[in-house]
């Protein structure tokens, strides 16, 4: 039987999205962090270096580094329409907020729990940015 977990956060950007989790416990660096044409992470030593966030549920603690952080997502959107399908964000700072507006994917944010204790790479995640719920089905 599949194990399902539901987390409750703040509904930050409305809508419902689902996909597989891409967990970035150290976020993504805000400058030179993503290749604009592909959405591929190019930050040296990143746990997902070389992978694209296209269609994934991106799980991050918050932003990191440069004010260009939202540009990590604006570039792939502008050039190729590539974007994360949804977001789960432990704490949404202003850089995350701008990214949410530019990308337009559902986001749930500002959790009391450590989200990385509950979501791992490859888990199936439904983000309900209207209700503020995140439903996680563990990878079997």
């Amino acid at each position: 039987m599949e194990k399902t977990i539901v987390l409750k956060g703040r509904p930050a950007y409305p809508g419902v999205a689902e996909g597989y989790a891409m967990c970035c416990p150290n976020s993504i660096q805000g400058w030179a962090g993503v290749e604009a044409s592909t959405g591929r992470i190019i930050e040296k030593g990143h746990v997902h270096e070389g992978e694209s966030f296209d269609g994934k549920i991106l799980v991050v603690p918050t932003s990191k580094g440069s004010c260009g952080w939202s540009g990590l997502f604006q570039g792939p959107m502008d050039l190729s329409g590539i974007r994360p399908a949804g977001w789960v964000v432990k704490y949404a700072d202003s850089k995350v907020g701008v990214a949410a507006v530019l990308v337009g994917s559902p986001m749930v944010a500002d959790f009391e729990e450590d989200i990385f204790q509950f979501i791992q790479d490859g888990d199936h995640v439904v983000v309900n940015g209207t209700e503020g719920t995140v439903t996680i089905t563990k990878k079997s």
Partner: protein
Amino acid sequence: MVKLTEYEQQMLDGAFGRYKQIAMEHVVEFANVMGAEELVKISKVHMCAGCPPLEYGQSDDFDESFRRTFLWTKEPVGFEGYSPEVYVQTDGGAVDQYDPKPMYLSQELFERNRERELRYAQGGVSIVGSCTPYLNGWIPLRGETFMTTESSNVLFSNSVFGAAGNSNGVAACAWAAITGRGPKCGMHLPENRIASVEVQIRCACETPRDWDIIGYALGRLIIQHNNAVPVVTGPFHDVDIIRLKRMFSAIATTSGLEMCHIEGVTPEAPTKEIALGGKKDYPVLQITQADYDAAEQLLCDPGSGPVQLISVGCPHYCLEEIRDAAAYIKGKHVHEGVRLIFWTSCSIREAARMSGYLATIEAAGATIGTNGCPLVQGFACYDGVTGMAVDAAKQAHYNRSWLKGGKMFYGTMEQCVDAAVSGMWEGK
């Protein structure tokens, strides 16, 4: 949902035209994402103009580029200027304002950038092109509000000037410059400015390079504590603007911190107790010599090796640093095949010219670069580079993503100049 004033609602309803309406729609959406209850007036904006140093939004047509980069709409709306109530000064851009050649950039880009700078100037923007606008008259004081595209400037203006602003993003700065508004959240709320953690410095803390490394280590530490606002405690002495801008630049590289109190130095931290808002129970962290050494190891590749590109001045050098660099390089000469660039703003470059520093630096075969650094002008400059030397943690950290296997060396300005003269980095 955010509550608007009558004026803000009129703007959102389109009473001042579609251009302002689009920007206000984004501001309101942004405020709702942040859970902000109201908007705040923004009095100063610092953002890239001319040709922005971005891979996206590129177009031969200025208005299309502006639309895709800043307005973020598919509607055929172009640049109609910024609000006269907002003072806007430019951050770094994609090409030098005097000579594109040291960064291997084209004359065509140089000319297009100048055309666009003039378009922005007509729209109310002061053309400076620096990551340190506070060295060039863009100084938001306590009670003022700001937005900036430069992360170290967020830390500097909140912490040192006591002004209020958040790290937002390139597009949000344009929305604020058009509407004069931003979400009232983050550092605009007094309770978020209070420190919640103490960071004790227990390592070498003398030179600007020490403060740079401490900033890098502090950022690595504080991101593990959800970017909690720290109060940094000593012992330290002789704190000056050079050390602070170095530290804040490095912190902003490894964390998302927006405010950093320094006991006895920054205005909201006359004492540790005041910075902490009277809290009795708070985490106490330390930057030890082991943390310092670990950060230094991450920044500088081991050993020695040839270098071809040497970039000094991050954040942009102030006139005092340019003076010191000119004094050190006087009588020396940069090795054939090596580029040595000291980065600053066009206004400080002009003062350096008036002071004779520019002539000294150029006589040594080095240059003063403006309007950026390799991080924003570097798409071509790494060609043929197997070794690069820098004097800033931020440069060492980010340039690795583009250097594609070349060695990265990190040291003092003097070490960088010595490497430029010999063509070799002499490691430990």
